[in-house]
């Protein structure tokens, strides 16, 4: 046990002595969360709305007021005529405009149907669509309120009310926090473990450890432990950041989430060991990690593209990527607040992968030694 402790201490020293390693391990998660959170944000926040209509009409005033009270929308001004809209967009003074027809109030009360037009700045189509659906939601709720008020019974509203469960604000952080978590844990565990073992292979110091009485399996474990602890720190820092900075809450059980993370970390460590066995230089190891792990994780984890809209063959391919399953679990537990039962399938797949990879990698490491 003392032999084992000595080699664990050594691994920690390697990590803390190397500024690049520390930088990757400690700063990268924070940078990624901040970067994805603020720079790559697709969410609508504080959209500026201009309107065009008759302010003496009390229904127009009520609708405008309602838009202004919405958390994500803000009225920035009134236009005299619809043709001014283009000027507003060009000078970037508004993101969308709402035009009320003449006799808006009268039509609304008498028939429940009134002319209203939403014009959005399509130069940013994603944002435009999102703002449009917010506005539609606000206006249709106004219409249905009037229906109740007038006749005492609810008039059939033909406009579907779109409501996003779990993520009412369409916050992109709900999507990328699980993704970044998967990416970081995998990077720390697979890449850094692989590189640290291959580095010793390159310098020949691995040989020194192997001729010592410390058993090969324990050498491997002593290499893994520091990265296991590092990933625990990263896991905690991502959770804290996403809770306090991104306001993404942990809705489900923190224990379940941590357990899933642990299984994923073991899978990644095993992958790292496997990569270290097949690669002879640090460069090869990095390349395999980059092309074989990081890129597929970015693509298939749903950080950038939703898996569901991929061709079927790619969806099958995405099934063999451990990160995909972990990210699904995180989404379910963290965002939807699901329990054990709902993630049982994903968790078993992940655990299966962990056991398989661990067996294969330890076996191949041992054969390599002989």
């Amino acid at each position: 046990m003392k032999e084992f402790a000595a080699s664990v201490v050594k691994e920690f020293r390697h990590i803390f002595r190397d500024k690049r390693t520390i930088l990757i391990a400690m700063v990268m998660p924070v940078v990624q969360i901040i970067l994805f959170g603020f720079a790559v944000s697709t969410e609508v926040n504080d959209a500026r709305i201009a309107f065009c209509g008759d302010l003496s009409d009390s229904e127009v005033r009520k609708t405008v007021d309602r838009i202004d009270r919405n958390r994500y929308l803000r009225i920035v001004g009134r236009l005299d005529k619809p043709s001014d809209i283009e000027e507003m967009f060009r000078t970037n003074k508004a993101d969308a405009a709402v035009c009320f027809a003449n006799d808006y109030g009268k039509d609304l009360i008498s028939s429940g149907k009134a002319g209203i037009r939403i014009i959005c700045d399509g130069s940013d189509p994603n944002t435009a669509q999102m703002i449009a659906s917010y506005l539609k939601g606000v206006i249709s709720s106004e219409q249905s309120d009037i229906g109740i008020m007038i006749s005492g019974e609810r008039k059939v509203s033909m406009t579907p009310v779109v409501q996003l469960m779990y993520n009412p604000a369409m916050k992109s952080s709900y999507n990328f926090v699980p993704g970044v978590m998967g990416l970081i844990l995998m990077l720390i565990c697979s890449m850094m473990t692989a590189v640290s073992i291959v580095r010793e292979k390159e310098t020949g110091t691995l040989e020194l450890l192997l001729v010592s009485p410390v058993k090969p399996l324990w050498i491997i474990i002593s290499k893994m432990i520091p990265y296991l602890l590092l990933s625990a720190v990263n896991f905690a820092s991502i959770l804290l950041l996403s809770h306090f900075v991104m306001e993404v809450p942990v809705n489900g059980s923190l224990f379940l989430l941590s357990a899933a993370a642990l299984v994923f970390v073991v899978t990644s460590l095993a992958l790292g060991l496997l990569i270290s066995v097949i690669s002879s230089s640090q460069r090869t190891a990095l390349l395999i990690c980059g092309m074989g792990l990081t890129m597929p994780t970015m693509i298939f984890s749903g950080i950038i593209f939703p898996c569901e809209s991929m061709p079927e063959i790619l969806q099958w391919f995405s099934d063999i990527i451990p990160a995909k399953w972990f990210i699904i679990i995180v989404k379910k537990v963290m965002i939807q607040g699901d329990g054990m039962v709902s993630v049982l399938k994903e968790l078993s797949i992940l655990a299966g992968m962990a056991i398989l990879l661990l067996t294969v990698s330890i076996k191949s490491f041992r054969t390599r030694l002989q």
Partner: protein
Amino acid sequence: MEGNVIEIRNLTKKFGDFTAVDNISFDVWKGEIFGFLGANGAGKTTAMRILCGLSRPTSGGGTVSGYDINTEQEKIKRHIGYMSQKFSLYPDLTVRENIRLFGGIYGLRDREIREKTDAMLGMLEMMSEKDKFAGALPLGWKQKLAFSIALIHEPEIIFLDEPTGGVDPETRRRFWEMIYDTAEKGVTVFVTTHYMDEAEYCDRVSVMVDGKIAAMNSPSGLKSEYHAGNMDEVFRIIAGRAAREE
């Protein structure tokens, strides 16, 4: 014979169809400096890995330090020291941390490690360097330190795998002085080398060709046997018969 620390009988190691070590047998006597020569690819690294407990023979057997090479690899590892041609210290650890690490993985107690550290640094006159990174030391110092660290657990045999690769002749000479001192204390030295002048320093030398031991004798014995003026000629005559390419 009394005092054999290594006894190898009919040792063979095959990798698939390729026979790296082909039925070799030899003894190494206690306290001698045994030179293990051979061209690249002659099988000496494979044989040495088996002696160090890193690899198992395909057939044959033997003992190192009294322990069976087939079944008691862990015990062998505890009783041998090893230093390789490649850099044997961790450059990003300080001199003292390197000593601590190897003391630790060989199971020494903290107090022992502290005493050994002081004794070692005093002997190497490196007390003022103890907190420097090992990577920053001159190559000659690194080697002396690596050699002393390989002896930290007081092994009966020390394996040196081309220990003086890439060093100037003066440093090499001083390194061999350390080897002599060690052998005088009764530690058996098993050394591989490419430098034939170093082979002259050994008590006995074996030359491997194509996985077999082609010759084994004292340097002077070999020279008269092959009518050669120096070990370089001896090696060229013997290794020249090799059928196997590198």
